[in-house]
């Protein structure tokens, strides 16, 4: 039990710091920490929102691995395919674009950056209008009309309703809007690198731009590369609702665009199996954690 005097001393010394932090910390705790903990705890229960949660141990996870055919057959492969292309693909694209932009003078660079960044400002609901018109399934759809004019397809294609095209369109649309804050951070990072490093390398006989990228640019901006990677990972998994937005139904046609996020919603809000949905959430959070760890390995700064 600390004495009153020492408490007073602590308050004088550290009290105001905690005061400044308090509101943020409270909100952080209520809306981030508690939901994550709750997901973790609920994942060991059976919970249908009517009765109290009942502890069932690892059964949700066992069901997920052994009995959930939809998950193993569609959701997991879809999620991996989507995440691998949109995550590392989008990230590499963002870096290359940022690198190219950095080679241009300020005014064209700013213009291009604005154009590339602006898709990430659009919201899912607003763009649904656009995608539904562009990819409309009858001959008045822009893509159909364009391809029919060129003679590539004879009949209008049901782009958003056909299992074989939905995933491709989801990936293209997500890549389109993925030049976000991570892209800007990498652009700023490239521009911050001391130009003398390049001059020194040129004097040492480094001649190719690729060498320059791998031996100077990336190592000099590892912190920004890591920030960009985390943003890319989060963005990829956060974009999971796109299939349902595009096709207009959950589950998506023949589960073609079903991602793990849709699976959570399917079980949580459509079937009210909250415990099971929580187990899927935990799997999703672990996936994010795993990929972040991986990029940490790649880009951790040697300090």
């Amino acid at each position, binding site marked *: 039990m600390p004495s009153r005097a020492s408490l007073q001393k602590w308050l004088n010394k550290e009290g105001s710091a905690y005061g*400044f932090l308090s*509101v943020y910390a409270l*909100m952080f705790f209520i809306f*981030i920490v508690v939901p994550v903990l709750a997901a973790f705890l609920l994942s060991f229960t059976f919970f249908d929102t009517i009765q109290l949660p009942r502890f069932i141990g690892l059964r949700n996870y066992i069901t997920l691995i052994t009995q959930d055919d939809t998950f193993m057959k569609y959701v997991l492969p879809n999620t991996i395919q989507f995440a691998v292309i949109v995550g590392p693909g989008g990230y590499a694209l963002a870096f290359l674009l940022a690198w190219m932009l950095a080679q241009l*003078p300020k005014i064209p660079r700013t213009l291009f950056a604005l154009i590339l960044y*602006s898709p990430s400002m659009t919201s899912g609901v607003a763009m649904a209008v656009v995608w539904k018109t562009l990819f409309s399934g009858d001959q008045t759809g822009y893509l159909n009309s364009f391809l029919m004019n060129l003679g590539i397809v004879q009949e209008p294609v049901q782009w958003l309703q056909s299992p074989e095209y939905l995933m491709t369109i989801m990936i293209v649309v997500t890549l389109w809007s993925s030049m976000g804050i991570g892209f800007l951070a990498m652009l*700023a990072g490239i521009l911050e690198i001391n130009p003398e490093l390049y001059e020194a390398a040129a004097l040492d006989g480094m001649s190719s731009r690729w060498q320059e990228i791998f031996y100077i640019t990336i190592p000099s901006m590892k912190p920004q590369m890591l920030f960009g990677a985390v943003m890319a990972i989060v963005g990829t998994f956060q974009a999971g609702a796109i299939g349902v937005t595009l096709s207009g139904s959950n589950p998506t046609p023949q589960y073609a665009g079903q991602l793990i996020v849709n699976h959570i919603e399917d079980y949580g809000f459509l079937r009210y199996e909250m415990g099971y949905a929580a187990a899927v959430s935990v799997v999703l959070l672990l996936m994010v954690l795993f990929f972040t760890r991986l990029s940490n390995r790649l880009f951790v700064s040697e300090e």
Partner: protein
Amino acid sequence: MKRNWFHRFSGVRNRGINPQGFHVSQLKFYLLLLPLAAFMLLPILFIFSSAFKPPDELFAYPPRFFVVNPTLKNFTDLFSKMSSSGVPVSRYLFNSIVITLVAVAASILVSSTAAYALSKKRFKLKQTLFAVNTVALMFVPIAVTIPRFLVIQRLGLLDTFSVHILPGLAMPVGLFLLKQFMDSVPNEVIEAAQIDGASDLQIYWRIILPMIRPAIATIAILAFQAAWNNAETSTLYINAESLKTFAFYLGTLTTTASGANAVAGQGIAAAAALIMFLPNLIIFIFLQSQVMSTMSHSGLK
């Protein structure tokens, strides 16, 4: 001086990173970037174009990308419309504006005070708390929609105005960027103010805030996008139609547009989509140089 002279006449500074002017070596980048930028711009141009299309152009066959006879009819139609439950469209827009303004102001205040403590104050848990926030950068809100719903239900926040604001207030990226930027404010400035007898609040308000304007602009943009584009809160946590947002209303337009109501809905939906997008764009254009200077402090070590 000598270096400047060398750069100006050798043309070295126009090649490589951050050039001052044009150089032939940049041509290849323009050749790659121009078509790509045009391609990425298409869907955005499409929003502008369809918002001003009269009905016969919206459903013309073959479809035409650009508007020929622009009209404001879609916008007047939009605002004379009521939702199916009798709430006028202007109400959704009003809700969105108020919610966004409050959310932006509150986010700036909450994140910048916390960033001040984490950057400039000395206390035991400082490193730990910042590390926790950095881990939370990888938080994917969509993954915990269900437990979040349960928390919000328990707190009695369903169907309230504050449920639009509170869950988004703790924004780990925002705190992270603010704190990193604040680290570049020299400690001497603060020490000098302390010697002059300034309190913590005065230092925060009079010294720190004016010096971190670029970072604040960035947080403002992030908070704006999150609040303005948010349709989910209205879907999940709000039953009362008069408390829902414009983004939500736009969502209902597109779900009906795929069904029976396609003909009437599309022009209105396009106009609404433009109203959703424009503020994002305008704010970013005004603040982009501040955002870029914040981003150079964004490194994750």
